[in-house]
């Protein structure tokens, strides 16, 4: 555990190449705007090596809510690397997001 905690940046850069992130929202609400802004900040700082963000508006594609098992909004889904991870909320708690994305282990 200690070695991992000492080298978070190294791990992040290794894994970050393949990050595919979907952000599910329902229309352009303040909450979804906050979530997207927070996500972009987090990615810029912690996933510098490369990532892809796709915003999915469920008001336009309601079917996807069922297909992808979405309940709460906004939901951030890490499609790649597997396994799939889900984070809900406006992503204002950076620490939780990093843990959720498995970029950083929980302390």
């Amino acid at each position: 555990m200690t070695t991992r905690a000492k080298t978070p940046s190294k791990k992040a850069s290794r894994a970050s190449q393949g990050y595919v992130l979907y952000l599910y929202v329902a229309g352009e609400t303040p909450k979804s705007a906050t979530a997207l802004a927070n996500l972009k900040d987090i990615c810029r700082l912690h996933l510098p090596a490369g990532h892809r963000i796709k915003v999915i508006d469920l008001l336009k594609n309601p079917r996807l809510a069922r297909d992808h098992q979405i309940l709460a909004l906004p939901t951030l889904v890490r499609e790649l690397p597997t396994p799939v991870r889900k984070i809900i909320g406006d992503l204002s708690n950076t620490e939780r997001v990093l843990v959720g994305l498995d970029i950083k282990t929980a302390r």
Partner: protein
Amino acid sequence: MFAMEFLVRGIVDFGEPGVFMSFEESADELGQNVASIGFDLPALIRQRKLFIDHVRVARGEIEESGDFDLEGIFIRLGLAIDAVGAKRVVLDTLEALFGGFSNVGVLRAELRRLFDWLKERDVTAVITGERGEGTLTRHGFEEYVSDCVILLDHRVVDQLSARRLRIVKYRGTVHGTDEYPFLIRENGISVIPITSLTLNHTASTKAVSSGVASLDKILGAGGFYRSSTILLTGSAGTGKSSIAGHFIAEAGRRGERSLYVALEESQSEIVRNTRSIGIDIAPLIRNDMLRFHVARPTAYGLEMHLASIHQAAIAYKPSVMVVDSVTSLMSMGAGLEVTSMIVRLIDFLKMSGITLLMTALVESTHDANTTGVNVSSLVDVWLTLGNRDVDGARMRTLAVIKARGMDHSNLTHQFTMSKKGVEIMHHTAPEMRT
């Protein structure tokens, strides 16, 4: 189960499509579970009358960061409702949903918004939740969000299982507040009918003969009033079943049907025993003028008994009915439960115009005024039978403790039981009738 029946009945009986949103079981699992009570979910889904959305909620799988809402559920529900044109919605169960999130505050606010939204969409929603410690639901929001709260309960009393249903609240109605037993059988849920919440059945003034002419005379009215309830108490061997035998034989003579609920003896035993006092009920059985409903008290629980007696009475439509004996029902539950069950039966039979004769065993003749089932205040006629030793010979006695609306005898009468049946002896003392 209750919720699924609400949906399926809505579709089948009322033409109202429904949506089942499950937070626990998948559509396949749900289909399997309710197939046992005769519901074919896949068929309803194919007909586009039912929509099942399985919402997977798993704690630990979802990380929470900051503010969120449950708009995803709204979207999914909205889509499902539109897909089938649903009028009814079920959410099953809320605990599973709560289990997936740690921010309970958000959930409560969102559920409240969800209920309002469902109301706006003009759908009736059944939401299931588990009972909490000391509160109706674990998260205690039922008080302010729901228009109707129904509590289901499954308990085991004296090794017999009993399911209960209670309407805790129902805005805008005058609802029953009691706990009602219910059964889950092959054709779904049936709540034991509580037929008479108000005492508005009309009292009959027509009397039916008891089958013993001398008894009719003592009663004053020429027999029992039609659709009244008669209680016959006495210790073992005092002639309760014999008088019951006379009663059904007389009904047969009038061309009326009888239903004999036998909880102690079998049909053939009763046929044999009544024959010993000169009554042959076998022809009545052959002509379907008499039916037996034989059941061992311990065979099933109290509710099952009541339901089966009800069903037998509804199916056969007898004009008189004998329950022999109510005492054996005592072995099935606590006193209060048996009493309430008998009250329901009495009410139901009164409404149906069926004259009921019940027998009850009492420990001894000294104890004759207590029936043990506390139904004596509910019956219209109460007769006690006794045995008394006089100079080494047994003397049978019969007394009318009460007979509502009748100018009855107040004496203790002697009677004999022979091949000619029950015969009450002429009393020599002067009669003081009230």
